[in-house]
């Protein structure tokens, strides 16, 4: 394989760094979700003083987790797709479809990014009912996730990383 131009290599390095940050943010969020939900059970049954905010806080973390994980899975090619027809098409045709799929991902991510930023504006100063957490934090996830998907889709296209590497070990950043 030809060496990629250095500008593309730096882009890939930068984007992979963002993904590592997103990955460890996801892991922390998941730990937090477990901790908050478990704490709620303990507070309710042992101390008999349930909290109001914990459910909403956990759900907010989950939405962030979901948006970031969706983006990371684009870079890692973890999203399920039907590749049956692509594999019938041979090398060039298959390549065209791989690029096409990434362009669709890119378009959709732009919509997500755009609607995320609009929704942040629309949420204004509204608060989530039970916890009083600002509602725009919820929609920032769509904006952030959308932005990372855009970067990941572009990086996949320009670096030619368009399908899963069958021999790669899953990345295990803590």
């Amino acid at each position, binding site marked *: 394989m030809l060496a990629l131009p250095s500008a593309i290599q730096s882009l890939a390095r930068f984007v992979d760094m963002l993904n590592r940050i997103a990955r460890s943010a996801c892991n922390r969020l998941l730990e937090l979700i477990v901790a908050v939900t478990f704490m709620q059970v303990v507070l309710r049954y042992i101390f008999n003083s349930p909290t109001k905010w914990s*459910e909403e806080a956990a759900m907010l973390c989950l939405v962030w987790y*979901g948006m970031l994980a969706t983006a990371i899975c684009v870079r890692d090619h973890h999203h399920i797709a039907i590749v049956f027809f692509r594999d019938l098409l041979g090398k060039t045709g298959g390549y065209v479809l791989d690029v096409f799929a990434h362009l669709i991902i890119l378009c959709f991510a732009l919509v997500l990014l755009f609607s995320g930023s609009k929704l942040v504006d629309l949420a204004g100063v509204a608060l989530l009912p039970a916890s009083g957490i600002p509602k725009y934090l919820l*929609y920032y996830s769509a904006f952030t996730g959308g932005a990372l998907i855009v970067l990941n889709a572009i990086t996949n296209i320009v670096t030619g990383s368009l399908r899963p590497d069958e021999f790669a070990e899953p990345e295990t950043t803590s």
Partner: protein
Amino acid sequence: MTEQGVGIALLLGGFLGLMILRVPVAFALGMSSVVTAIYLDLPILMVGQRMVNGLFSFTFLAVPFFILVGNIMTEGGISDRLVKFAEVLVGRFRGGLAQGNVVASTFFGGISGSSVADVASIGSFLIPAMKKRGYSPEYSVAVTVTSSVQGVLIPPSQNMIYYALAAGGLPIGKLFLAGYVPGVLLSIALMILCWLAAVRQNHPTGDTYGLWNSLGIVGRASVGLFTIVIIIGGIVGGVFTATESAAVAVVYALLVTVFIYRTMDRQKMRRIMAGTLASLGMVVAIIMTSSAFGFLLSYLKVPTILSDYILSQSSNPATILLMINILLLVLGMLMDMGVLILVMTPILLPIAIKIGVDPIHFGIIMILNLGIGVCTPPVGTSLMVGCGIGDVKIERTLAALLPFYMAMVAVLVLVTFIPALSLGLANFFE
């Protein structure tokens, strides 16, 4: 063509078209929704909003927890303990290892809700062990793959949560309970087949352990299996919600693997988090985009149109249920189970309700039916994983799988036409 007709064509045609063109399912759902929303002059913001709200759900929180419990227990070595436990229970019978495979999968289903995880973990112990004892590789793979369907039927089951969400909120506890009898029935059917095969092909008995050894094995497995008591006992006893019980189970699974099994270390913990991210990222993406897609489906009144059409063809509930089952079997062979539950439930459930089928019962029919699809080519994920472990070609397993398919379809027919199999236990605890 009316605006509604074009909208439906854009939504469904766009989804199928993009999917065939290799666009990942989540993005095919999302992009067809975006295009349809633009055509219908709906604000495009709606798509982002539906996506966020689709995931902003306390019920769905149980899914990451159940995936975590399954991953922690698997990395922590529950599988070989369950395999030995199953051998203690049924190893002395003819074809003991095959019987043990079914039993181990049934218990594993109580800890993990994924049939692929079942094949990957139980299978990596039992397929090589069965081959060593002289079972054919094809038969070993067939038993492992078909018994993994317990994973989706025996609670906890992520797929049941997807169904409950797609159905617009059903009681998870009731749905979980409804899975037990069909799951056990499937186990019994598979075990009868294993026994028949053992007699015909002269399969050996499995290992037997002495009394003290057996007690130790049972004890070690029971510590892990107590997870089931936490989850199901918690929900049925009204102590926890499904989500809370799942969070307690995560903490319990960690405690067991760190302090009792002493099998957990940092490296494994990292693998658990990475594995959870990969499977969860894929699932949440589909949950989010299918929420926008589902909104447009009902906005365009697709469920009503389809149910009017089907009911105009036949008003006999048995015929309609049969048609739905055949449709789902075909779709299940072609597509992923979770996607089908999320996309097809809003379409098919209204029909089922109109002909008097209980939504809980319908969920079990759907999950068992699509579970069969996980074991069939061309896109049966469990089958592919099983064939990978057993190192056999998918085509060569089909002859060995045929009797198992027939048994599964027979159980599906029973579950479809005897509602009490699903609802009996669920209503008993109401």
